[in-house]
């Protein structure tokens, strides 16, 4: 996110911008089926990490718990660790164990 965009958002949403960020979540394979959609939008606290986003999602959709030990994450097209922090507008991909080939 560039700075100009962030400022514009704060100007239009003065109450939520400082405490909450919104991310787009992409779900694949079995995780997509459990979520019931290939794309979700979720709000998290401004200092939240991927682990916290995942915990929220498991809370909301308990079937996802099966993947808690195997799920991997990508942020904006790059694989990242679960302790990676989130930023406004991030595209987060939930990647269950792969089975290509």
């Amino acid at each position, binding site marked *: 996110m560039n700075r100009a965009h962030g400022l514009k958002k704060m100007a239009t949403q003065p109450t939520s911008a400082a405490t909450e960020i919104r991310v787009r979540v992409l779900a694949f394979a079995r995780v997509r089926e459990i979520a019931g959609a290939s794309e979700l939008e979720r709000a998290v606290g401004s200092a939240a990490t991927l682990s916290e986003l995942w915990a929220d999602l498991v809370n909301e959709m308990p079937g996802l718990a099966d993947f808690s030990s195997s799920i991997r994450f990508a942020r904006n097209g790059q694989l990242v660790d679960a302790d990676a922090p989130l930023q406004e507008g991030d595209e987060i*991909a939930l990647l269950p*164990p*792969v*089975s290509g*080939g």
Partner: protein
Amino acid sequence: MIELVEQPIDIRVLYERVRKDEHGAVVVFVGVVRRRSDDDRSVSGLSYEAYQELAVGEMKVIAQEVVSRFSPCEIAMQHRIGDLKVGEPSVAVAIATAHRAQAFDACRYAIDELKKRVPIWKKEHYVSGEAGWRENCSER
């Protein structure tokens, strides 16, 4: 040629893409939809889905690794996405090198890494009407 494709894979296209006059060996690995699942169920077809941007990116990283480990060589890789029937190729890797040993090694490396790392998922559809997502095990 490193890509995901929605249309059937044409193995000859990959072969032609990698083969040059300095190469004495071309190895083409083709992964094909099998009639029986690993748990011995009768399979009617497979569906593949991918996180496309990252999948192609990771396939390109693997191709670069192949080139740096097994140079000089040429590589082409295609993976199909969508719905496939029994007998259709799901993935093809073509490697051309001066001599065969290097081509076999490079091809093995590329397909093994693809199966481990590239964000593609397969769902098996069974003749019974049921279906299930699979996970890759190594070395099979």
